[in-house]
């Protein structure tokens, strides 16, 4: 059945309510809303959230934006916490202690801080053990909740509060970690990389697959941050589109080890198009810093080519 956003919104009420305290123009709430919408209406979910912007803005006692069951424990352990919930489900179901209709699904949300960095071990453990759950990383490329500090997801040269663009060191000097590939290395049945694009079709469809694939699944979702990236709040979707069209954030999925690129831009835009609207890359456009843009472009090209190669190899 063809994807139809209007129909989905009409037939599936949001399970992530308005009234939360996330910033205007933040990429994360649409991610949470669309992922939760991918659940079948009759199914119940338990959501685990790592500490981060999303957690502290959606569940401030005594208010919550989550209509499904929800648990937050700490920063680095959404993976392990949800693994415990899932283990309890398996155990109680097996023993006949849960008598209810429909399925219960397990979805974790963490930012790049809680996922790429402090929570990587907990995530890796949960995926390796094969829990039937989905881990969704909303990747805004820095520790935004504490005030825009660099993470291993921060792109090279980005200006953050712990990798400031100074007169000697021009921003973050290290490349971005490729978390989706690390997850592929766990040989789990489903890994998807996506973002909110073209009426959220890619995000929704990948979320649906991730949730309804038996076993562990991982979604890496780019979620821009207007405060950390420095773009006008109304430009969220424009930034997302540029990330895809420049191949900075390729959309792809890996199903049982086989790569499928979801979208190949007919005309791959130069990386400047993605960098220029963001204040965090402003210093790269100063005279004399052309090398930084060239280097950035080279890395994007290499990673895109690598992905094309992987798709070719794994489909042979």
């Amino acid at each position: 059945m063809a994807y139809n956003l209007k129909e989905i919104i009409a037939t599936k009420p949001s399970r992530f309510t308005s009234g939360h305290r996330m910033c205007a123009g933040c990429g994360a709430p649409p991610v949470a809303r669309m992922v939760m919408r991918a659940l079948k209406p009759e199914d119940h979910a338990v959501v685990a959230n790592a500490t981060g912007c999303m957690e502290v803005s959606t569940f401030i006692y005594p208010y919550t934006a989550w209509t499904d069951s929800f648990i937050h424990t700490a920063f680095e352990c959404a993976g392990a916490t949800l693994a415990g919930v899932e283990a309890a489900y398996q155990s109680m179901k097996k023993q006949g202690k849960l008598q209810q209709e429909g399925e219960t699904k397990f979805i974790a949300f963490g930012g790049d801080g809680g996922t790429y960095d402090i929570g990587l071990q907990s995530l890796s453990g949960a995926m390796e053990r094969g829990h039937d759950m989905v881990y969704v990383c909303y990747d805004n490329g820095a520790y935004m909740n504490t005030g825009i500090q660099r993470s291993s997801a921060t792109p090279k040269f980005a200006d953050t509060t712990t990798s400031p663009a100074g007169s000697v060191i021009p921003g973050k000097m290290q490349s971005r970690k490729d978390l989706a590939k690390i997850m592929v290395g766990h040989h789990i049945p489903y890994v998807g990389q996506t973002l909110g694009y073209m009426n959220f079709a890619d995000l929704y469809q990948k979320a649906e697959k991730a949730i309804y694939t038996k076993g562990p699944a991982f979604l890496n979702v780019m979620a821009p941050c207007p405060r950390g990236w420095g773009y006008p709040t109304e430009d969220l979707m424009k930034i997302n589109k540029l990330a895809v069209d420049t191949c900075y954030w390729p959309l792809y999925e890996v199903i049982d080890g086989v790569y499928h690129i979801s979208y190949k831009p007919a005309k791959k835009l130069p990386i400047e198009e993605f960098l220029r609207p963001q204040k965090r890359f402003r210093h790269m456009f100063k005279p004399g810093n052309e090398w930084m843009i060239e280097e950035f472009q080279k890395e994007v090209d290499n990673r895109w080519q690598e992905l094309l190669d992987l798709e070719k190899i794994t489909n042979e």
Partner: protein
Amino acid sequence: MGIRERLSGNEAVAVAMRQINPDVVAAFPITPSTEIPQYFSTFVANGQVDTEFVAVESEHSAMSACIGAEAAGSRAMTATSANGLSLMWEMIYIASSLRLPIILNLVNRAVSGPLNIHNDHSDAMGVRDAGWIMLFSENNQEAYDNTLMAHRIAEHPKVKLPLMVCQDGFITSHSIENIELLEDDKVKEFVGEYHPEHYLLNKKEPIAIGPLDLQAYLFEHKAQQAEAMNNAKEVIAEVAADFEKLTGRKYSFFEEYKLDDAEIAIVCMNSTAGTTKAVVDKLREQGVKAGLLKIRMFRPFPAEEVAKSLEHLKAVAVLDKSDSLNGMGGALFEDVTSGMYVSGKSVPTINYVYGIGGRDTKETDIEKVYTDLAEIAKSGKAENPYRYLGLRREGE
């Protein structure tokens, strides 16, 4: 009429866990508690329990998974020691604040550093203010019995707090001693079923757990934890009374050994109590009025009852198997002396830090304490109250 067996402390706890048949066990190996998840895995592999065993990748994840499992509505248990508990520390506080009756068997070992795998109580002392009920066990029998009583206490509606059962690493955990086990069906009946009021897996009532809890509420929530800890005292006594009816084995907040008519006494926890009892018996034969107070319930701390129990003495020595490195004495010493002071009881009291990193504590060491106490009783003065027992001095 009970089953006579010979088991190590770790085996005893694993057997208790098998009989309890928890829904989830999440654990990571660390000496000297490793055997507990090992034995338990065998029960899982052989289908003797219904448990989902989650072989996590760290102790931090072990406690996180236990929190998730318990919040989901199931019974979760784990075991650890020393650095394992240190790594859990963050989650230990979260477990109690979420009011989840998780049961943890702590096989006491020295916390690094430097690295040492042997027994002392520095691990337990690091979480003494974390909102967990803490029961200490002299031997395998007590570790087993405390574990059987754990869920009834922790899950009580007036309590709803996590609970840890402590026993001494190697000394108790690896020593095989006689033990009397209960029959499986009797344990099942005694422990009962767990039906939490609110839980994540209840589709009919979705709940949210673990909020951002700011200035307007956190204080009240912490006060509720404190109230639950106060309530635990009464529940621990009730459960012990039921357990005594079932087994004939009597448990109180503490055990008084030849304390009624004693003039001098030692206060300690776990296996050292066994050594101390032997010394008390010997001294009694020599006409020395020595006694012992062995703390079982360390959290909540029975301050008033301890003060009352010690008030008639001429001198008291509190033995701490962990140094607080604070310039004033160990944790148990602080609790005992605070309890005495607040109750208006004045007995000369000294502190011995002993057994650090598994340093053997022999009967002769304990005898030395009673010799010191006899002198203090005579002079009425407790000078230099922060002392070491069994520490080698330069040149020794």
